[in-house]
């Protein structure tokens, strides 16, 4: 005879009602809720009203939903203020579901999203980065879209510095493990990694940033929403099992890292690309067959967030049976099941009559699932574990979360013009060091570890030019549909050094560069996704940065007629009191009419004309040149959106007439680095004269990163037509391409002479010692 023992109750009551402020603080701490005392008293009032104490499941669910990560309590007010007035243009869903959806052609839409995975990557770089990729794939998948490209912007500390002290992980270790995580996950799921950025700065020494993005393609009539509205639908939890990994991830992601945070590794989820890969197939097959009524991925906050949000969005509620969730390990408590952030899971709502069909699909792909609940009408969410009711809360209260209108402080405008020491430097020697620095050198050591050709759709790869001697592309181009020559150009990055100097114009600079990256390929920019990485929002200075970034993004998008379709805000990127520089990481996507005309960045022939499109800029503020020489500045160049608009129109005309053989925008490292990178592609040099550009100092002309400038290569037979197309735009002819030699003249003085390999070698090997 055996007896069932109830060793301990499944859920416990939390003594909230009679707690004083001190006790409230203690409860939040003991249960790792991450809620402030004010928030705790809001909860106390709510339960006072109900006349009962909450269960531990309820408290944990509230803490998940009210974390900064889930409810954007610090940024929501301002996001709404600056973004809600933006027009949608080609977007079908902007800032509504798990990812943005934008029209691609009559029948298809593309789906985009970028999201930060900073805190997990700081602690456990390999797992954090890998699950960042996994999470972003699910965001695309849950819209019913086939993922076609991954991208990632990653920011590291001083990988070259051997004297970094403290308990944190060394930036070199973080670099190798983040790259490893992205590689091992991305390559295994078979989606090409096509674009992104890699940056190095002291401010990321203990706060690395990992922003993962993804783009997918879906037929417009197959778009699946992240909402359910059909009462009686079954809730299916599909894919990986639920375990104790990743518990309290969102609370942790909404807190400041300090020495000692390193011990919290269990908050980082574990990824498994080998479950993800068939999950993608199975979900897309079920979606194609019209079996799915609503779908949401399980990310931060786990079931707690997903069930809440998907129901609230559709005006329904749910009864969930927690004991039906398939577990990785025995003995998990109800609250742990409810908030676990285990990876590779999707929540599906289906009609009961489709259960058999969908079971068959998942069975064929060896994917596990269980029915965990049912959609009901009303507003109260109920969770049961076996026969015990462990949660009964109003969905609206649970999911909405508080909104803060935090104090902010705008930076004081002090004009501090930089002072450049006398020009005593040998430009060639300087450039060789400059190009070999981690901030400016090639990213090939990293890019070649990522599979960027799988699926066979990559038209412009991140590396372009002669085989095994390539240079960098501005944006990558993929051709997502077999039957159409239309393409998608994708880029991501940030001019964070300029943003740090001046958040307004630095953000314009970031947006302008993203725009130009897409435009130079010949595509028309059509949507923006933002990943805003900032320090501690409780500091007014940081809120000031956030507000200025949002304001200039909003202005840029209004002017350039672009929708912001998705994004995320990552705050509390602070380590033991020091904040990161503000990093608005911008992903931009453009649509190209015909990929056969796509323009890449590599000079292709000898004897062609070189032009600069766009007015000159001579400001060195926020430039890599000043950074490299440790010269302070707090002015950033200005960016002219009217000119950008004009250039955009004319440039696309030149693209469709195939007048431009290669093109690269002027950004990091200024005009000289732009020209050199173009020459590295096929080892074609350049002979140029800077005299006609302006009267500025030579150093300013070659290193300024301002303006909306594009350097282009034009064949002699197209020169006249090219000039005619750009009649209303400032263009400057500066020289010709050569078979290999480099020669730069300014006011009759030769300022640079050499062979390509003298510059390419240091550029190629800048990261060799670190990865």
């Amino acid at each position, binding site marked *: 005879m055996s007896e069932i023992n109830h060793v301990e109750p499944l859920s416990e009551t939390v003594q909230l009602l009679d707690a004083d402020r001190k006790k409230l603080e203690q409860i939040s701490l003991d249960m790792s809720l991450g809620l402030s005392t004010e928030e705790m008293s809001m909860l106390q009032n709510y339960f006072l009203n109900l006349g009962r104490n909450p269960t531990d499941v309820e408290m944990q669910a509230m803490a998940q939903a009210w974390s900064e990560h889930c409810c954007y309590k610090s940024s929501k007010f301002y996001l709404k203020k600056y973004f809600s007035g933006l027009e949608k243009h080609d977007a079908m869903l902007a800032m509504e579901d798990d990812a943005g959806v934008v029209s691609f052609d009559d029948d298809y839409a593309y789906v985009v999203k970028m999201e930060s995975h900073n805190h997990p990557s700081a602690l456990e770089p390999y797992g954090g980065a890998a699950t960042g990729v996994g999470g972003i794939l699910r965001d695309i998948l849950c819209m019913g879209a086939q993922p076609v490209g991954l991208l990632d912007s990653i920011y590291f500390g001083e990988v070259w510095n051997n004297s970094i002290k403290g308990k944190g992980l060394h930036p070199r270790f973080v670099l190798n493990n983040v790259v490893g995580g992205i590689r091992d996950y991305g*390559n295994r799921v*078979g989606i090409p990694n096509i674009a992104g950025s890699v940056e190095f700065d002291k401010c990321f020494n203990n706060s690395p940033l990992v922003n993962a993005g993804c783009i997918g393609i879906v037929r417009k009539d197959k778009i699946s929403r992240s909402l359910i509205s059909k009462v009686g639908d079954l809730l299916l939890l599909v894919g990986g099992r639920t375990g104790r990994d990743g518990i309290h991830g969102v609370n942790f992601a909404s807190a400041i890292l300090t020495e000692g945070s390193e011990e919290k590794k269990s908050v980082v989820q574990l990824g498994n690309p080998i*479950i993800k890969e068939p999950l993608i197939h199975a979900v897309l097959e079920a979606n194609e067959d019209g079996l799915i009524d609503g779908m949401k991925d399980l990310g931060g906050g786990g079931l707690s967030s997903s069930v809440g949000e998907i129901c609230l969005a559709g005006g329904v509620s749910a009864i969930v049976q927690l004991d039906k969730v398939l577990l990785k390990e025995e003995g998990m408590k109800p609250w742990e099941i409810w908030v676990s952030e285990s990876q590779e899971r999707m929540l599906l709502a289906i009609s009961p009559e489709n259960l058999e069909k969908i079971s068959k699909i998942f069975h*064929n792909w060896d994917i596990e699932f269980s029915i965990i609940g049912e959609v009901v009408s009303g507003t109260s969410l109920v969770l049961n574990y076996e026969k015990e009711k462990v949660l009964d809360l109003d969905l609206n209260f649970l999911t909405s979360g508080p909104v803060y209108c935090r104090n902010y402080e705008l930076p004081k405008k002090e004009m501090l013009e930089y002072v450049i020491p006398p020009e005593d430097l040998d430009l060639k020697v300087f450039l060789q060091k400059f190009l070999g620095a981690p901030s400016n050198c090639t990213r090939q050591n990293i890019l070649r570890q990522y599979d960027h050709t799988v699926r*066979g759709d990559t038209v412009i790869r991140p590396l372009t030019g002669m*085989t095994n001697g390539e240079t960098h592309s501005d944006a990558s181009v993929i051709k997502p549909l077999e039957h159409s020559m239309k393409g998608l150009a994708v880029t991501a990055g940030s001019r964070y050094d300029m943003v740090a100097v001046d958040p307004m114009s630095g953000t314009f600079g970031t947006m302008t560069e993203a725009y130009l990256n897409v435009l130079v390929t010949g595509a028309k920019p059509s949507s923006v996704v933002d990943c805003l990485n900032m320090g501690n929002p409780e500091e007014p200075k940081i809120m000031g940065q956030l507000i200025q970034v949002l304001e200039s993004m909003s202005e840029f998008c209004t002017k350039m007629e672009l929708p912001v379709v998705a994004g995320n805000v990552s705050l509390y990127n602070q380590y033991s009191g020091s904040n990161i520089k503000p990093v608005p990481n911008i992903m931009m996507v453009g649509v190209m009419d015909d*990929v*056969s005309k796509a323009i890449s960045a590599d000079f292709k022939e000898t004897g062609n004309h070189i032009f600069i499109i766009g007015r000159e800029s001579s400001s060195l503020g926020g430039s890599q040149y000043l950074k490299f020489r440790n010269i302070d500045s707090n002015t950033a160049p200005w960016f002219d959106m009217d000119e950008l608009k004009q250039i955009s129109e004319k440039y696309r005309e030149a693209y469709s007439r195939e007048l431009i053989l290669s093109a690269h925008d002027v950004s990091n490292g200024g005009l000289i680095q732009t020209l050199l990178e173009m020459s590295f592609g096929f080892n074609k040099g350049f002979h140029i004269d800077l005299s006609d550009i302006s009267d500025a100092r030579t150093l300013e002309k070659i290193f300024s990163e301002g303006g909306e400038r594009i350097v282009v290569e034009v064949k002699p037979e197209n020169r006249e037509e090219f000039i005619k197309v750009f009649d209303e735009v400032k263009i400057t002819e500066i020289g010709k391409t050569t078979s290999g030699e480099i020669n730069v003249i300014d006011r009759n003085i030769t300022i640079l002479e050499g062979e390509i390999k003298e510059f390419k070698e240091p550029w190629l090997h800048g990261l060799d010692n670190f990865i």
Partner: protein
Amino acid sequence: MEGTNNEYEAFQSFKRVGLDPRYVHVNELRRKTVSLEEFSSIFLPGGFSAGDYIRAGVILANRIASSSLNELREFIDTGKPVIGVCNGFQVLCELGFLPGWSYENQREIVLGQNTSNRYECRNTYIRLTSDNMIFKDFFNREQPYLVPVAHAEGKIQIQNKSVNLEKLVDMGQVLFRYSDPEGNFGSYPWNPNGSDHDIAAISNENGNVIGLMPHPERMFYRYRNAEKKIFGETAIGEVFFKAIKQYISKIGY
């Protein structure tokens, strides 16, 4: 199976030459819902079957062996082409069909970790180095063909090399070798993984079981006009899959 990828571009490649491809999951073989007999060619795509956490391809090979080894052997004996690319190549080696001397149960060739000790995604060139019945009329032996590679374990290591390498060459089983753009064999990064004798692809003695590390299916078309001028109008994928189609119709399947 789980972790397999590259199937999309392989599928498209067959379709582009006018064939009628179908995806078959290893579970369908196990459950006997599909019979290999009905097909005229088998393509084992690349990827990381089961994650490749143990040894590349070994788990998929075991699953195929347990469900349809005999069926696959009969398929091969009819002379129909069986192509394994990347992970698929690793599977065919694990199954003993490549180089196929002792047929199965013995691995004469191992695909090891790249010499660079890391995953390498890059383009390189390959040249046809055999009179293989499928490819000899389609590839120019003097011409290097641009092709993508992307793998971490693709270094062809021949067991008992002093004897077996010569045997492989003599029997015409060295199908493609890595070269630089001028057609000279060898040297990193053109040989991206450090394979013996710069071997990129091999076949069985009969020439109908093909294993290759590069991915012709990922470069079927040369999309950009600017690229066509530099690298030529026709890309390797089109040549490769047209050759397979021609061979299939010649043998009458």
